[in-house]
């Protein structure tokens, strides 16, 4: 059978957009893990809450039936900022109320508490939007959704669809990634974060406020998750209280695959997982008749287990000897 390049390119585009989304969530896991060595199990739910808030925010701003590009962009921007702020503050408060009290407890105690927080947030999600799948308000009209850059704007003769919506996801993600990189590598706060990640005790001796630095890591991770929540809600046009579990675990897999604690690794892992996801969802089916989207979680969790067992440091992470 001849290789279907058109279809491959199509799923490549989907994979990159999914990957960008996963990378945003994965960064939250990796930031927090790098600093406090905690798998913030509730991070997926912080993302879900961001998605839910962006739905509520857009409904509150009101959607105009004949909104133009400028209005859509403005409302989107406001909803995006609201979701980022909300998720950031939420993640920060979780750390303040729960994890900080368990800072000196052994590793499993905060992890169990994090699982608990994740369940509480899912419960709140049900109270907020119900236990069924929610349709977001019609922020982006269908005709705008289906604009294909390649044919409609560039006038190319192709069957590949690269929608303005896909482009928007990538355009929203890149500045966030650059911003994070700037924060971590070019500011005093970032330096403090790296110092605390390296050695908490020594950082404290150097006059760094450790708790404040950890709190900022949670805040920043939450902000990124909130942005991802907004994007996921309007890109896929669905939201559900359980969405955080699936996305969260996929993103965690991405973080582990890239090397947990490593920012570039999270982005790389996100892209890989995004590609695996889209290829497994659609592309493989053309070659393996019984394959389908239902096998995707199996593949990705398989990757998670295999990486953890055979290369726990991931692709870009470095081996850290366990402290006794």
């Amino acid at each position, binding site marked *: 059978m001849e290789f279907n390049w058109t279809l491959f390119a199509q799923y490549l585009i989907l994979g990159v957009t999914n990957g960008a989304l996963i990378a945003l969530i994965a960064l939250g896991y990796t930031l927090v893990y790098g600093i406090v*060595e*905690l*798998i913030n199990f509730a991070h997926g739910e912080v993302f879900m809450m961001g998605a839910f808030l962006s739905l509520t925010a857009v409904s509150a701003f009101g959607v105009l039936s004949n909104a133009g590009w400028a209005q859509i962009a403005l409302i989107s921007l406001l909803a995006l900022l609201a979701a980022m702020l909300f998720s950031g503050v939420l993640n920060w408060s979780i750390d303040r109320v*729960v994890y900080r*009290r*368990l800072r*000196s*407890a*052994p*590793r*499993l*105690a*905060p*992890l*169990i*508490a994090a*699982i*608990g*927080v*994740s*369940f*509480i*947030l*899912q*419960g*709140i999600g*049900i*109270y907020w939007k119900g*236990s069924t799948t929610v349709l977001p308000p019609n922020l982006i009209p269908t005709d705008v959704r289906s604009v294909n850059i390649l044919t409609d704007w560039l006038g190319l003769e192709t069957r590949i669809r690269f929608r303005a919506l896909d482009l928007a996801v990538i355009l929203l993600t890149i500045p966030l990634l650059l911003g994070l990189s700037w924060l971590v590598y070019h500011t005093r706060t970032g330096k403090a974060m790296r110092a605390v990640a390296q050695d908490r005790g020594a950082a404290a001796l150097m006059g760094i406020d450790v708790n404040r630095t950890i709190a900022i890591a949670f805040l920043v991770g939450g902000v990124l998750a909130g942005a991802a929540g907004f994007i996921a809600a309007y890109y896929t046009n669905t939201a559900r209280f359980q969405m955080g*579990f699936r996305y969260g*675990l996929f993103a*965690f897999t991405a973080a*582990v695959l890239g090397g947990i604690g490593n920012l570039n690794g999270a982005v790389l892992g996100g892209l890989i997982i995004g590609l695996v996801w889209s290829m497994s969802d659609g592309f493989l089916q053309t070659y393996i008749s019984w394959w389908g989207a*239902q*096998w995707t*979680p*199996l593949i990705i*969790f*398989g990757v*998670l*287990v295999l990486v*953890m*067992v055979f290369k*726990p440091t991931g692709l870009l992470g470095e081996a850290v000897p*366990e402290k*006794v």
Partner: protein
Amino acid sequence: MADLARTQTIGGRSTSADVAAPRSRRDIVVFGAILIFLIAFPFIDQRWELRLMGALLPIGIYAVLAMGLNIVVGYAGLLDLGYAAFFAIGAYTVGFLTSPSSVFVRAGVVPPFFQQFWPALIAAFIVAAVFGVLLGAPTLRLRGDYLAIVTLGFGEIVPNFFLNAVPLTGGTRGINPIAKPPTLGPFDFGQTAQRNWYWLILGIGLVSIFIILRLYNSRLGRSWQAIREDELAAASMGINLTRTKLWAFALGASFSGFAGSLFSAAFQYVHPSQFEFTLSILVLSAVILGGIGNVYGAVIGAVLIGSFDRILAERLTVPLNALGERIGSDWLASHNVGEDRYVVFGLALVLMMLLRPGGLFPSKQRAAELQPDSEDISVQEQQDLFDVLQHDDELSDVRGGQVA
């Protein structure tokens, strides 16, 4: 919290509440009274029309699950988040072996002996243990939180496989019927014979408690506790870490598989949605609520969590909705208490970790995995020394009596 933990530090004192069953006469009386109440409960249920029998079967099975998870989490200090996977493996093993609709039975590859309930139950026990070893062998050398995530991944893969491997498992159709236990004298185990099922599960639960208590005091049980308290020290004392952890994992898994096979037979069908992550967390909440490392705590935790899940969630909804209509609260009027399970499980985990890491009924030597780290070693050492001095007599007693 640090103070609370320090009084319960490690030490060599093996005078735990878990040691053997009743010791004093008072304990025997209390134990006997509870036992009689439990055995007589079906008659009480009938007399006052409580209609609790249907809910008590799953609660009893949760209790067996919690006891098994308690071996893994409480005794050996390994956090297993994919416990439901073994439950699924047990349930599907019995389904594959005994159901007339199973592919294997129709292909004629299952010997008639294994198509009966009890042999299939034992097969499920063994198959789950084998899977426990298969998962545990490569993963148990991982650090605690990594192990938790690997087991979680496994716990997602297994039900997902059963859901999607339609030719094998029937997918969402599930498998039914399942073989029933053969009739024992006046006791038959049909679907309407809930009372007999109750006694069967009660009996199995009691036998499990006995086995687990014996295990806890065995050489293996002491090795688990040693590993849980301090891996490095345990290894230096000549304990084989991998093998000891593997035993905990395999035994925990086989308990889960066993419970799964009971579940499938009691409810006569196997369906992939029965084994979701929520179940793993339900059992974990039960163990943590009741008291990590304490068999009785795990059982009580399972009864508490199970009662909410199977009794309160159903019975509270109607009165709450009525109340909501009377006070004019739309939210309350249409609220389904079953939806509160997420918040309830979550709160159980978070509050326990924050306020009472040892659980409601902590084992005296509770999991050091959940105690504050010994950052301030000098304080802890002094405290230990103090404990040793205080309990010197007791200690020598124990040395002489138990630790041979």
